[in-house]
């Protein structure tokens, strides 16, 4: 079942890195805004840097900052870890879907590289895999470069306040969802996807309306995958 031809090369890494170029403005803006928010919340520079580089998951960092309060009580601490987990729950599914590809790479290489897993390099890696690419440098290179840009972007934000006062005016807030929408197009192959996505959409909308937050990503994706699994062509 598994093809034994997954490779890793410098060329793949740099190709993956280059593919991220168009989203740099969005990443830099978001990272800088996080720096500004962290500064306003009274975090030290070191704390802001550490959260940004170690957690490395945009949305969850912002939500955690919403919860944060000074001085930090145990309850707040647990809430911060809790919301981070809830927002990043989708990582479970994203990681699971990479198994067919990265499963052929030795574990001592994959597990460290999973630290770099984000929606962005997951999407890039997956769409390249579907095009027939078997060089997982695409994943590694794009993950590394995004991590570097993200880690650096927080610095000017922390010190200079918001450089771009209103990212919305430049349409920067739609960059990531638009990227998602574009990558969805080649995934469509026929009836199975249509049904699966309709199920996903219905469950996600329902969850979003009833519970709110980020739970809809989880419930919708599970429902859609189940629909896909039980639908025979």
């Amino acid at each position, binding site marked *: 079942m598994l093809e034994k031809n997954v490779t890793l090369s410098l060329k793949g890494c740099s190709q993956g890195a280059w593919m991220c170029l168009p989203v740099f403005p969005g990443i830099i803006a978001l990272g800088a805004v996080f720096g500004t928010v962290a500064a306003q919340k009274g975090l030290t520079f070191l704390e802001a840097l550490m959260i940004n580089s170690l957690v490395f998951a945009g949305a969850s960092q912002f939500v955690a900052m919403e919860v944060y309060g000074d001085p930090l009580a145990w309850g707040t601490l647990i809430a911060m870890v809790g919301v981070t987990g809830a927002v*990043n729950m989708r990582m479970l599914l994203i990681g699971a879907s990479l198994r067919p590809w990265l499963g052929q790479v030795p574990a001592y290489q994959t597990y460290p590289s999973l630290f770099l897993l984000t929606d962005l390099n997951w999407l890039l890696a997956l769409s390249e895999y579907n095009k027939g690419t078997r060089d997982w440098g695409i994943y590694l290179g794009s993950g590394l470069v995004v991590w570097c840009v993200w880690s650096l972007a927080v610095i000017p934000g922390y010190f200079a306040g918001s450089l771009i006062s209103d990212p919305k005016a430049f349409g920067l807030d739609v960059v990531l969802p638009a990227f998602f929408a574009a990558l969805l*197009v080649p995934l469509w192959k026929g009836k199975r996807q249509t049904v699966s996505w309709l199920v996903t959409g219905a469950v996600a909308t329902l969850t979003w309306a009833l519970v709110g937050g980020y739970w809809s990503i989880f419930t919708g994706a599970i429902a859609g995958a189940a629909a896909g699994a039980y639908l025979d062509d």
Partner: protein
Amino acid sequence: MLAVLGMASVTYALRAGGYWLMGRLPITPRVRRGLEALPGAIIVSTILPIVLKGGIAVGLCLVVAAAAQVGLKKEYVAVFCAAAVAAGLRYAGL
């Protein structure tokens, strides 16, 4: 500092956890089909709340992105088009 470490480790656990779990489960044809359907489902369920929150303007931008992708087959052009439309719509006050 504890909060930082807690957040970092819970995130990494989720990143690696799904991948690890899938290595322990037998990959039957059914599981494989489910995994194949997973990426699209994740994308759909991620975009939907953004559209529901962002309203017609955001929805329109994503339609533009998808249409550009169908026509031109270049993700980056599609993203650029969508951002340009968003900037235009905001400028127009939508």
